[in-house]
Structure formats: C-alpha cells, structure tokens
C-alpha cells in the first residue's frame, strides 16, 4: 500500500512574476541599481568637473587663515584666525540666537495660546488676530521688515531713541546697560547654587513623603523662600555689589554698555514673533485635547481649582504639547539660518557664504553645514523620543 504523506509541506516556491516575494526582490534590485547608478554617475561627473576647474578637495582648508572679519562674535576673531574658528563663530552665533529665540518664543507663545482660550471675548479675539496674521506671512518677509523697514530707518547715533532703563536704540543696534559683578559676587552665586540644591532636596523628600504618607508639602513656596534667604544672606555678608555700566553717548558712538547689533535684534524679534504664533497653536491644541470630563471628574473629587490645573489638566496637556513644541524649537533653530539674508553672521552666512566663496570647496562646506543641522536635529529627536517614552500613556 502506498503510504500517503500527510505532513504539511511548505509550498514549493516556483518563480513567478505574480508572486509578491519575487516581485519584491525585483523592485528592490531595480531601486538599488538606479540609486547606485546615479550615485556613480554623480561622483563621476563631479570628479570630472572638479578636474576641469582645477579644484582640489579635502578639509585641509580649515587650518588656513581666513582673512575676513566677522561683525559679531562671542569670542575674539579677526583676519588672522583660521577657517575652523570661523566655523565655530558661526555655530555659536546660531546657537546664541536659537537659545534667545526659544526663550522668548516660549513665553510669548504660551501667553498667546492661553489667551486664545480665554473666556474674555476681546482677549481671545486679539490673540486669534495675532496668530492668523503672523502665521500666514513668510518669515523672511518679517525679518526684512524688522531689519530694513524698522531698524535700518532708526535715527542715527546722535539722535538715538531713549527707552526706559538706560536703553538706547539707533541704526547701529540696541544699547543696554551691562551688569558688572565684583569679585565678592562669587559668594552670591555659591549661595544661589546652595539654595537651588536645597530646593531640589526638599522636592525629592516631599515626593517620598507624599508617596509614603499622602501628606502634601508646599515645595514651591518653601524652596523659593529658602533660596531667597540664602542668597540674601550671602549677598549681605560678603558685601558683594552689582553695578550697571550704562551706555553713555559720546561724540560719535556709545561708550560702555552692551551693544546688540541690529541684525541680532531683528533676527531675535522675527524668530520670536513668528515661532510664538505656532507655539500658541500647539498650546491651544494641547489644552483643548484634555477632555472636559477630566475637569468634571476633578471637580467631583473635590480637587481645588489650582490643584486641578496643576495635577490633572497640565500634565495631560503637556503630553500632547511637548512633541510638537520640540519640533517648533527645531524649526526655530533651522529658521535662524535665514539670518544670512539680513547679514547676521550665523553658520550659513559665515560658512556657506563667505568661506565657500573664498575657498571654493563647495561639497565640503555644504556637507559640514548640513552635518551640523543633522546632528542638532537627530539629537533633539532622540531626546524627544526618550521623553515621549517616559510620559507616554501606560495602557494596561
């Protein structure tokens, strides 16, 4: 009797164009072929072009003297500095404007976003007008407006407009008093550090106690009080003094004080106002995403108004707000490259502009610039993913 093989057998794969498996392999082979082919073609063309133009390649230019000046830098830079120093100046200037911009845009954006949700008709309408106006106008146009139409039409130095607190504004930029700290001030900084450390300690202790006993402790007020007292005492005892060096108008220019170039002021203004409108929308969406049931449930549990916001609404809203907020921060950082258009010496201006023109190393310079933004972006998203995983809703 012939035995019948009843064991399940994997179907024999015979080659057929109708089989998705084989088709997948063919698609991939075609894609790989096209991509590798085009890359080879581009490399080949580039090599031929560079040879024809008698250009060299490589990153050795970074260690040559730059021979150009940069109008604004956080550390000394002049014609005899190297190209890598120019790169660093551009990078620090980009980071500087991004940090200032993010700081102000967050404050303004949260204010406007909350104002849009206000029950006060006039306030919410004004916030809506702000958001809808600013969002729909290109950032570059806004930068041009602030720089060419506002700051460049400011009066000359001798007719400077005087603002409160010894601040002056004119064609050459914004002049603000410069805070000066004497040697004893180190003690005050130390006091501040001790105060903040105590604050953190108290908050850890309070959380442990809350988890163990359920008793609450006013962490914020205590921490603030301790920090203020410690700082105040060290200030008094050490006899530290903080003075302001105000800008004083000489015959031709201001002496003393801190000079902020108009390019920086215009860029910070433009970035802040533009990004704030997007942050406001993010904040509004986040708060609205917390369902009204949460508010009602908190009220039903008898939670106080302030606690309701702090413990129920805000944590849930932040979960929605933080991811798009980070991408707004990233956008602001990337948008700071538009400073090149108004002459603020940030990375694109210094490196992709001047350095590229002088050295002609197009590929290296652009690759390095893109690499900087790539690293900034990827590290931020990595941080973001970590945070997201931490606050994500734990579903059971």
């Amino acid at each position, binding site marked *: 009797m012939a035995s019948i093989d009843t064991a399940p057998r994997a179907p024999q794969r015979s080659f057929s164009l109708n089989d998705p498996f084989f088709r997948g392999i063919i698609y991939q082979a075609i894609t*790989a072929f096209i991509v590798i082919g085009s890359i080879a073609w581009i490399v080949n063309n580039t090599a031929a072009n560079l040879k024809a133009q008698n250009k060299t390649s490589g990153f050795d230019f970074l260690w040559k003297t730059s021979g150009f000046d940069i109008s604004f830098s956080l550390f000394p830079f002049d014609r005899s500095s190297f190209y890598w120093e120019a790169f660093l100046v551009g990078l620090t200037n980009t980071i500087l404007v991004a940090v200032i911009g993010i700081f102000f845009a967050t404050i303004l954006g949260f204010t406007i976003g909350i104002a849009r949700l206000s*029950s*006060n*008709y*006039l*306030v919410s309408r004004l916030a809506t007008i702000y958001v809808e106006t600013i969002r729909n106008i*290109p950032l570059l146009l806004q930068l*041009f407006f602030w720089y060419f139409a506002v700051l460049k039409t400011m009066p000359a130095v001798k007719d400077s407009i005087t603002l409160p607190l010894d601040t002056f504004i004119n064609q050459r930029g914004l002049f603000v008093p410069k805070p000066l700290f004497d040697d004893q001030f180190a003690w005050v900084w130390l006091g501040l550090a001790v105060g903040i450390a105590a604050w953190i300690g108290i908050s850890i202790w309070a959380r442990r106690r809350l988890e163990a006993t359920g008793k609450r402790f006013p962490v914020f007020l205590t921490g603030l009080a301790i920090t203020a007292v410690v700082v105040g005492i060290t200030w008094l005892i050490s006899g530290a003094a903080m003075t302001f060096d105000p800008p004083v108008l000489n015959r031709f220019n201001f002496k003393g004080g801190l000079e902020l170039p108009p390019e920086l002021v215009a860029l910070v203004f433009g970035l802040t106002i533009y990004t704030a409108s997007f942050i406001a929308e993010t904040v509004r969406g986040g708060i609205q995403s917390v369902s009204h049931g949460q508010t009602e449930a908190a009220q039903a549990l008898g939670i106080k108004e302030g606690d309701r916001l702090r413990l129920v609404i805000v944590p849930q809203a932040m979960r929605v707000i933080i991811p798009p907020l980070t991408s707004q921060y990233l956008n602001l950082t990337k948008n700071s490259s538009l400073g*090149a258009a108004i002459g603020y010496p940030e990375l694109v201006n210094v490196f992709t502009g001047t350095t590229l023109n002088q050295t002609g190393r197009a590929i290296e310079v652009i690759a390095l610039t893109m690499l900087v933004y790539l690293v900034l972006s990827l590290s931020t998203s990595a941080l973001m993913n970590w945070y997201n995983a931490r606050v994500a809703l734990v579903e059971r």
Partner: protein
Amino acid sequence: MSDIAFVRSDMAPSKPAPGSTTGVAAWLKQNLFASFGDTVLTILAILFVAWIVPPLYGFVIGNAVPPGGTVEQCRVENVGACWAYIGSEIEFFIYGFYPMSEYWRPNIVFALLVLLGAPMLIPSVPYKVINAVAFFLVMPVVDTILLSGGMFGLREVPTEQWGGLLITLIISVVGISCSLPLGILLALGRQSKLPIVKTLCIAFIELVRAVPLITVLFMASIMLPLFMPQGTSVDKLMRALVGVTLFSSAYMAEVVRGGMQAIGRGQYEAASALGLGYWKRTAFIILPQALKHVIPGIVGNFISLLKDTSLVYIVGMKDLLEAVKTKNDAIEWASPTQSVTGYIFAAAVYWVMCFSISRYSRYWENRLNTGHKR
C-alpha cells in the same frame, strides 16, 4: 424628644429672579466682565486697541498717499503708507523683468490658472477628470510654451527675466502638485516591507527634514552644476523647483505616514481578504482614508511651501519678495515710508493667499467629516 432634627417653621424668603442670560448686557457680562480679573483684562485690551488702531489706520489709510499720487506727496513729514509707490511699480511686482510687450502671455497663464483651478476646487462642478487632465497635463505644457516662447512665432523669454508674483505662483503650484504625489510615494516606501526601499526612503526623509531649506537651495544652486556632466547647465528656475519640491515632499511624506498609521490593521486585512493586491489596496482603501485624516497637515505643508518660495532668491530668482526688496531701494520713490509700504504690500499678498488656502481646507475638513460626528 431629641432636638437633632430641624424642621423649618417659616417660609424661606424668595430669591430674586436670576439675571438675564440673553441680550447685550448679559453677553457683555459673560464675555467681558465676568469677574474682577476679567474686567481688568478687558480694560487693558481696550487700552491696547485704542493705542494701536488709530496710528495703524492713520498709516494705512488716513495719512496714506493713494495710488496715482506723486513722490513729493510721499516725502512730507508724518506721511502714511506711500501706496503711490506700489501703484507705479505694480507691474514689476507681478511680472518682474518680463518684457512689457509680452505681458499678455503671463496674463493668459494667470487666467488659465483661475479658469482651470477654480472648477477643480469647487466640488459641485462636473467633469473633474477632464478638468484634472487639463490642469495637471495640458496646462503645464501650454504655460511653458507660452512663457518661454521660442516657438510658434513667440519671442523667446529666458527664465532669468521672469519674476515677481509670476515666479512665486509658478513655484508654488508646481511644488504643491509635485510634492504631494512624491510625498505619498515616499511615505509608502517608508512603510514598505522591502528593506532597501525602506532604508532609502527613511534616509532621504530624515536627512531633508533635518536641514534648513536654505542649505537645500544652496546645494541646488552650487552643487547641482557640479553633479551634472560638463557643459550642461541647469536652468535657475529648474533648480528652485527641484529644491523646493524635494524639500516639501519629505515633510509631506511624514504627514501622509501619520495618516496611514491612524488606520486600523483591520482595513489592510479586509482589503487583502477581498483579494485586492498592494496597489489596489493602497489606492482604493488605505490612501482615501489616510489622506482624509491628514488634510490639515497637508494644507499646512502647502502653506509652508508657499511661504518658503520667498527663499528662492538664493538661486537667483526674483520672486515677489525679492522684487519688492529690490524696488525698495529705488531712488525715484525714495521716501520715509517706502520700504515699510513695500513690505506691507508683499505681506498682504502672501497673507491673502495663505489665509484663503487655510479657509478652503477648513471647508473640506467639514465636508469630509463623515461618520465621526457625535
């Protein structure tokens, strides 16, 4: 008898009727003067409006020089916006350096855009397929021939001479029409099970999204000529188009991917169970639902693209903003408010375009909001 119980022995005094909840006074009370803090806010807001509106009105209308005015009128003290400057340079802002005798050609292009575009946008107009073929296939060819000329007896106009609003619109329309399909393909590639395709798509999307558009355009303007075989030159407009489209498609891909992830597995499985292959499943089941979910995101990208066209000055195109910026230095209209007026004009044009796009998307969201209403 214990006296813990309380029994009311006399009538409680009647309370006054609650305040009206309708009418002007009630509305004012609810929306402007609900509490002490609210009243303070309202007063501050009124003061702010009173502080900002009269000077703004004075600048834009009250003290402004209307179109047709002279430059001398714009040079007096405390003058408002110099609309006369806009009025006299409006042709440059619309056409750039396009030869004046050939203005009818861009005009036909604008007219075609409106005549073919408007019926596309209004859902109740029939013949959508024919319309789409005309808009996406016929119109680009006709427009290219019309604008660049060189055949059918038309004078040749190189793209360097195109400019102003014309360039802004061309780049936006081409960018919008090309970046959505490209973005969908990239999103499909990113979701694909084929490892090579997937890796390439992820690498492209993440790389492009990480860098600012300005560097992509620098690359298009400086490195593209290096990449091409010797002797070939890439048209400047083409560089701008390629740069803007590729940039926007990466963002579009992420939006579309978000929509595709929002669709339950059941939809994929149901489609496969019905015997639909990959492309049919994607085209008829997945994408229609996915795209519906992400209309706000897609339109948001369209608006960013429209605003980003202002960066094409990097590759040397004179778009609307660059045209305005150039003319703001024109000596013959030099006056205190010249550049402010120019930028306000450009801002108004961009604003009208972007705002109408966002309103139109709101309309579609409501129209497609089927079955999810509570």
